[in-house]
């Protein structure tokens, strides 16, 4: 076998279910394995859950507007902030990054799909149904109320007899499986499916950041999954992992959770960095400044992400030695992050900067993330952390880092890639309004929370007495919520407007630099007519403006054998559905249902394995026929 040539997988005759072939309608979306359709599903689901989380946030803000309000009871309040956090982290922002990656990573590396298309579909459905499972808790006895990091022993059966905690554990457990397999799929795809000439150091930074993110997923999710599993065991089978009465250590949960939790921050933020690294060069008409440095910084940040977890636990009494060590490792992360910001600024310098909505969001991201990074360094100082840990200063900090860092840049990405995904332009006039309302609202909400944190307002309190000095900034913060809400609604309106009568986008509305802009908008289901050949970084730019770069010709030889279109399949959605229903069996300890679903999974795996990847080939010359 020559390097770069691999046999297609063998086809099997054994079939439990006929292979679905719908190309339109609901069933075609249920059985799709196309990375673009799944990307759209991810993005839509993310925005849907983000909407739910926003409603929760809105209620939280209303409750805190004035001291002593009782718009919601403490119990409901606990459920609201728990679900807001869980939703934003696990169900909204992280899948949004995965969604953009699903859609654009294969296009950027010139691939026809992900390496394992059915696994990709499985990943989506598992995430989506896990999220739905989590949300059904609102109808069955109350949502989880233990905070998004669900500290033990608050989650033990004796302290929390309701089913809310079970929904948290099982929902995230199931959703985590989806994320995990998607992460693995991304790694194989990026390593193996790059177009000829697309060497690692020619890959777009977005793809690089997705690669780092995927590795973080692969290594960070297992500790979380096991920790969730341990609590499920405690609650369903009476084990003693986190039962203080049996000698269990509450602190172990925190270690396991944050070994996952800190990399999770980068799982959320690195795709955002990647998107920014595409948007800023495009609208500056310059290549990214210091490409290798930006990539190495990203890798370094991802690597260090595993070495800083106890900075979430400075106040748990680990002692000065541990606190010193983890303070220092955390400071170290400041260096590559600073480097990235400098390189993005240097990309703008000397360019031809276009203030599109996407670029405005990107620039606001730079400022916001810088502020979030600085408060991050402050919180990395254990003595100061002891003063403001679990106060609104921390709330402000992580909303700047994750909300400002990830959300603003994903909004930039939405404006940037929407024309490619739909073939329609979003209104730039409305876009400016959206930007100022969303970014302005964001600053109104969260900047005052720094002051409230310093004024001594703890997070997760349902109300506060008068006279502590929290009143003024809480009012401002709530007003900000309204401003931001108007911005988000305007964005929705803008999207509807674009579908109704948006200008056609054409292939390349922004004079883009990467391969996705070389094909039509929206892209054809087979992506590329011919396998693209890459001879430089910013491959499409090099094709368009060869005189401005020094592209080297590709030496690699390859032969086109037609485009393989993988077949649709029922199994991903069946397996995900079985996990979903099995989740309820686990929550309500209904073992017969559990065994039934287990059987479905076993049979499904065989069906899946013997169905094979299937599909058919189309040939470039026949496509138009």
């Amino acid at each position: 076998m020559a390097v770069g040539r691999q046999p297609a997988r063998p086809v099997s005759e054994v079939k439990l279910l006929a292979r679905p072939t719908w190309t339109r309608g609901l069933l075609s979306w249920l059985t799709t394995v196309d990375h673009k359709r799944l990307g759209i599903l991810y993005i839509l689901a993310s925005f849907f859950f983000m909407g739910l989380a926003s409603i929760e946030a809105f209620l939280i803000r209303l409750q805190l507007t004035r001291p002593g309000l009782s718009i919601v009871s403490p119990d409901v309040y606990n459920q609201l902030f728990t679900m807001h956090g869980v939703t934003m982290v696990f169900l909204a922002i992280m899948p949004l990054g995965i969604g953009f990656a699903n859609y654009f990573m294969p296009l950027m590396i010139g691939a026809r799909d992900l390496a394992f298309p059915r696994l990709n579909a499985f990943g989506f459905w598992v995430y989506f149904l896990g999220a739905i499972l989590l949300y059904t808790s609102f109808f069955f006895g109350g949502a989880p109320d233990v905070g998004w990091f669900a500290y033990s022993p608050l989650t033990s059966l004796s302290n929390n007899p309701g089913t809310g905690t079970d929904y948290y554990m099982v929902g995230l457990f199931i959703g985590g499986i989806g994320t995990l397999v998607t992460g693995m799929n991304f790694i194989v795809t990026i390593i193996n499916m790059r177009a000829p000439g697309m060497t690692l150091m020619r890959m777009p930074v977005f793809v690089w950041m997705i690669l780092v993110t995927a590795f973080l997923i692969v290594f960070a999710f297992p500790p979380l999954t096991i920790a969730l599993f341990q609590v499920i065991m405690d609650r369903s089978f009476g084990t003693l992992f986190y039962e203080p009465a049996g000698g269990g250590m509450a602190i172990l949960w925190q270690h396991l959770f944050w070994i996952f939790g800190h990399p999770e921050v980068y799982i959320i933020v690195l795709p955002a960095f990647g998107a920014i690294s595409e948007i800023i060069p495009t609208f500056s008409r310059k290549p990214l400044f210091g490409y290798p440095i930006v990539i190495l910084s990203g890798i370094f940040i991802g690597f260090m992400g595993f070495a800083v977890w106890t900075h979430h636990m400075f106040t748990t009494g680990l002692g000065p030695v541990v606190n010193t060590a983890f303070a220092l490792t955390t400071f170290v992360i400041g260096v590559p992050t600073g480097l990235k910001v400098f390189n993005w600024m240097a990309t703008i310098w000397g360019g031809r900067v276009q203030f599109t909505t996407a670029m405005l969001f990107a620039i606001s991201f730079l400022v916001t993330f810088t502020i979030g990074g600085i408060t991050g360094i402050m919180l990395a100082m254990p003595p100061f952390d002891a003063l403001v840990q679990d106060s609104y200063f921390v709330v402000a900090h992580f909303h700047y880092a994750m909300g400002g860092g990830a959300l603003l840049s994903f909004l930039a990405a939405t404006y940037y890639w929407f024309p490619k995904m739909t073939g329609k332009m979003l209104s730039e006039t409305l876009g400016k309004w959206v930007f100022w309302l969303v970014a302005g609202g964001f600053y109104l909400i969260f900047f005052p929370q720094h002051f409230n944190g310093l004024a001594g307002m703890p997070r997760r309190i349902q109300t506060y007495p008068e006279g502590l000095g929290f009143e003024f900034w809480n009012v401002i913060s709530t007003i900000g919520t309204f401003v931001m809400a108007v911005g988000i609604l305007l964005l929705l309106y803008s999207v509807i407007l674009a579908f109704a009568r948006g200008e056609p986008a054409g292939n390349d509305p922004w004079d883009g630099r990467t391969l996705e802009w070389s094909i039509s908008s929206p892209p054809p289901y087979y992506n590329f007519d011919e396998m693209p050949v890459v001879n430089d970084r910013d491959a499409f730019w090099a094709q368009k403006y060869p005189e401005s770069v020094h592209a080297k010709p590709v030496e690699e030889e390859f032969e086109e054998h037609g485009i393989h279109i993988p077949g649709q399949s029922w199994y991903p959605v069946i397996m995900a559905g079985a996990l979903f229903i099995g989740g309820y069996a686990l929550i309500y300890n209904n073992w017969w249902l559990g065994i039934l679903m287990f059987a479905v999974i076993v049979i499904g795996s065989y069906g899946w394995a013997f169905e094979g990847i299937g599909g058919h080939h189309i040939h470039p010359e026949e496509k138009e026929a």
Partner: protein
Amino acid sequence: MSQAAVEHAPEHYRSTSLPDPKLMMWIFLASDCMFFGTLIGTYLVYKNRSLEGPFPVDVLDIPITTVSSFVLLMSSFLMVLALHALRTDNIPRFRLWTFGVAFFGSVFLGFQVFEFSTFVKEGLTLQQNLFGTTFFTLTGTHGIHVTIGVLWMLSILITSYVRPMSSKDALYLEVAGLYWHFVDIVWIVIFTVIYLVEFV
């Protein structure tokens, strides 16, 4: 548009020479390392923290577990032989060794069932103390891995009777082999951490 089925599948362009399934398995195993790492970590954290007995020294039986560990190690050896046989198109041998792997794996599982039931008789249950909790989850998770491996090997064996197999299919056995060897290596770690260390 012609829709030729992938009967005579042409080779696909790939940027490395590492086949997708093999790469996938390596990444899965890397991830699985973290799964087992977390479980072993939990075991170590809770070592000697049980409030009441039975304690490890009361129940662990080194000679029996040594035998079962040896059986599991030998299954890995058979795995190598099976892969070699398939690569050289020696199908009868391939079937024999594949069956051997599944059989030895089952023997190991039998030992584990015996061990678990003995422990339960001696009063060590999942709910008894932290040792029971961590021991059964860790070794149980490993046992589930072995079970999946046994089922996988049997599936490959049955497949070889359903449709002809040749050295072209060696990749799939190789991937299963990677998994099997990994599960074996994990057992060596578990055996050391739970059993041997207790009696040092």
